C-alpha cells in the first residue's frame, strides 16, 4: 500500500511537489530559527556563566547582599576544602574559585613615575591548576589578540582596548592599585603577557585576567575567593537541575545566625537571567505552535485545492468500490509520506544553513558597542547552534501539519453522494 502510494506521489509531481516544497521550507525555517535562538541563548547563558554567574555559584550570604560593591572582605574562606567537597558531592559539575576585584592600573615610566592610569575590572581565575577547564571555557586561545597565556601568578592578560588606552604592550609592567581583603591599600606589580578581545560588549573595556594565585597575592586572600563557580560538564545550562541543586544546597547550609555561611545561586538568579531563561523557553514553544498552525492552514488549503483537482480520481475510486474510509486513510498515508519527505529535505536544508551560521555567525559589534549596561553579557557575534533536537524537531510540524491539513480537507470525501458518482463520471 505504502509502496503503491509512494509511486503515485513520485509519478504525479503535481500531487506532491507543492506540498513537499511548503513542508521543506517551513521545516527548514523552524530548524534554522530554533538553531539560531538556541545558539543566541546558549551563547548568552554561557558567556554570562563564564564571565560572572557560573551555571551556579557559591558565595557568603554577606557577600551576596553587597555583591555590586565587590566586597572581598566578605569572601569565602578555606575555599580549597569547599571546592573538594563540591567536586565530591556534585560530580556532574566542575567547580572553580574566582576572585572579582576592581582597582586602578598604573603604568610607570622609565623613572617609576606614573605615566598613565586607568580603572580596571579584574578577575582572578584558576588558569594554572592542572585540571582547570578555564582556558577552554574562556576560549582564550581563540580570543588572544597578542602575546601568550599567563604561565605564572605575576602574568596578566589585558583587554585589547584597555591595553591600547594605557599604551601598554606585552612584556611591560603595570602596578595594580587596589584594596586587600582587609580593605588595606595595596599595590602589586604584574607583567602584561597578552591582550585579548572577548567580543562581549561593555565588559571588554576595562578587563584584566590574572591567575587566581596572583590575585590572592595581590589582595592578601590566601585560600579565599569571592565566589566558587560551578559549570555542568557539558557546558549546557539546565535550568531545572540547577534550580533544584541550588534549593537543596541552600536548605542544607542554611544558618540564619552566620552571615558568612555559604549560599548558592543559580544562573537564573543573577541580574535578569531568570527572565531570559523563561523567555527562551516560552519563545521556542510559541514559535513551534505558530509554525504548526500556519503550515496546517496552508496545507489544509492545499488539500482542498488538491481535492478539487483530484475530484475525478476520488470519484472513480469510490465508484469502483473503495470505501470512503479507505480513500480517506490512503490520503492520510499519502500526506504522512509527503510530510516525511518534506521534513527530511527541510531538516537537511535547515541544518545546512544553521551549520553555516554556527561557523560564521552574525556580527552585531556596532550595536553592542553602544550598550553601556554590563548586567547582561552578550556576545557581539551571534552564532547559531546545532543541537540534537534540531534533527527531529521539524517532524512535529512537518508531518503533523500535513496530516492535519489533509484530514480537514479530506472530510469532503464523506460528502460525496454515491448516487451522483456515475452521473458525474459520465460528464
Amino acid at each position, binding site marked *: 500500500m505504502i509502496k503503491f502510494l509512494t509511486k503515485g506521489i513520485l509519478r504525479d509531481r503535481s500531487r506532491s511537489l507543492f506540498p513537499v516544497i511548503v513542508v521543506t521550507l517551513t521545516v527548514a525555517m523552524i530548524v534554522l530559527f530554533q538553531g539560531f535562538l538556541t545558539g543566541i541563548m546558549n551563547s548568552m547563558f554561557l558567556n554570562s556563566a563564564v564571565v560572572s554567574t557560573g551555571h551556579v555559584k557559591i558565595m557568603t550570604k554577606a557577600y551576596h547582599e553587597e555583591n555590586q560593591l565587590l566586597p572581598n572582605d566578605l569572601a569565602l574562606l578555606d575555599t580549597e576544602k569547599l571546592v573538594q567537597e563540591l567536586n565530591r558531592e556534585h560530580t556532574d559539575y566542575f567547580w572553580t574559585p574566582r576572585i572579582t576585584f576592581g582597582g*586602578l592600573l598604573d603604568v610607570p615610566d622609565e623613572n617609576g613615575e606614573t605615566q598613565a592610569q586607568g580603572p580596571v575590572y579584574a578577575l582572578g581565575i584558576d588558569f594554572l591548576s592542572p585540571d582547570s577547564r578555564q582556558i577552554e571555557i574562556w576560549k582564550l586561545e581563540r580570543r588572544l589578540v597578542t602575546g601568550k597565556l599567563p604561565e605564572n601568578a605575576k602574568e596578566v592578560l589585558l583587554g585589547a582596548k584597555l591595553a591600547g588606552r594605557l599604551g601598554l604592550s606585552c612584556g611591560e609592567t603595570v602596578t595594580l592599585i587596589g584594596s586587600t581583603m582587609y580593605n588595606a591599600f595595596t*599595590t602589586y606589580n604584574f607583567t602584561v603577557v597578552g591582550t585579548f578581545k572577548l567580543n562581549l560588549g561593555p565588559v571588554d573595556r576595562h578587563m584584566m585576567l590574572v591567575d587566581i594565585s596572583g590575585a590572592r597575592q595581590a589582595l592578601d586572600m590566601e585560600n579565599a575567593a569571592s565566589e566558587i563557580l560551578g559549570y555542568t560538564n557539558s557546558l549546557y545550562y539546565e535550568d531545572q537541575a540547577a534550580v533544584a541543586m541550588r534549593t537543596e544546597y541552600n536548605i542544607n547550609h542554611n544558618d540564619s545566625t552566620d552571615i558568612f555561611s555559604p549560599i548558592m545561586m543559580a544562573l537564573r538568579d543573577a541580574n535578569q537571567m531568570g527572565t531570559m531563561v523563561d523567555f527562551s523557553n516560552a519563545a521556542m514553544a510559541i514559535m513551534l505552535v505558530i509554525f504548526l498552525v500556519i503550515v496546517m492552514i496552508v496545507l489544509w488549503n492545499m488539500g482542498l485545492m488538491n481535492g478539487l483537482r483530484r475530484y475525478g480520481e476520488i470519484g472513480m475510486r469510490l465508484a469502483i468500490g473503495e470505501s470512503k474510509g479507505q480513500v480517506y486513510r490512503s490520503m492520510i498515508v499519502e500526506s504522512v509520506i509527503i510530510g516525511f519527505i518534506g521534513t527530511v529535505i527541510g531538516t537537511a536544508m535547515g541544518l545546512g544553513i544553521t551549520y553555516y551560521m554556527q561557523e560564521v555567525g552574525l556580527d552585531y559589534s556596532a550595536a553592542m558597542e553602544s550598550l553601556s549596561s554590563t548586567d547582561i553579557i552578550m556576545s557581539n557575534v551571534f552564532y547559531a547552534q546545532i543541537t540534537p533536537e534540531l534533527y527531529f524537531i521539524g517532524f512535529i510540524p512537518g508531518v503533523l501539519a500535513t496530516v492535519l491539513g489533509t484530514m480537514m480537507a479530506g472530510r469532503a470525501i464523506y460528502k460525496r453522494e454515491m448516487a451522483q458518482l456515475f452521473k458525474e463520471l459520465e460528464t
Partner: protein
Amino acid sequence: MNKILIFILSYSFVIGQSEGMTVQDIIKAMDNNLNAKSRVITSKMVVHGRRFSRTIESRNWVVGINQAFTEYLSPPREAGTKMLKLDDKLWTYSPQTDRVIQISGHMLRQSVMGSDMSYNDMMEDRPLIELYEATLEGSVKIDGRDHWIMLLEAKVKGLSYPKRRAWIDKEYLLPMKEELYAKSGKLLKTSTMDGIKKVQGRWFPSRFIFKDALKRNSKGTEWVIEDIQFDVEIPEHIFLKAALRK
C-alpha cells in the same frame, strides 16, 4: 521649641563667656592641643573589620600642617610601606612593587590600611579655626564632666566634612566626641577620644576611635598613641620623596 533653642544657645554662650572663653578661644585652644610645631608619634591602629581585627604599627614625623612622613612597621605585609605628605600632595611607597605612587583624586577617599580613616582625613589637618565657623549649641555633662556642644560649619569649599558637631571637654579643651557630616546633613563618620594625658604641657588623648557611618556593621578603628613627642627637631631630608625608597 525655637524659644527653648534660643534660650539654650544664649545660655551656653553666656556659660562660655562666663568661663572667660569665647567660641573662637575654644577652637584655638583645641587647635593648640592637637597641633604643634612638630611631633613624632609611635602608634598602633587596630582595625576592627566585619570579620577580623588587625593591628598596624607605624611611626609618624609631622612638621606643622604641611609635612608628614609615615613608616609602617608591622604586620609584615605592610612593614616598609611609607607615606609622604607635602602640602596638598600625598605619595605612597610600597617595597613589594618598589613604586612611588601619588594618591590623588578619588583615591583620596579610600581607606588608609583598611581603617575607618580615609587619606582625605589625613590630608585635612589645617587648624579648625581656618576651616570652620563655630556656634555653641549648649552644654552637657558626660560621665560627670562638663562639655560644650559646638556646631562647626565650613567656611572654605571642598572639605570632606562641611559640617561637624563636637562635644568639647571644658577642662581638657579637646573634642571628646565628634560627628562628621556631609553637606546634605548625612552622618559620615564619628570619632571619640579617651585616655587624656598631659604631654609636654598640653592635654592629649592616648586613644582615638573612628567609625565610618557609611560602612555597614562597622566596628570602628582604634588609633592608640603609644608615644608622642612635641616640638622636636626633625631633619629636613625625611620629607624628601627620595626618603620613601630608603
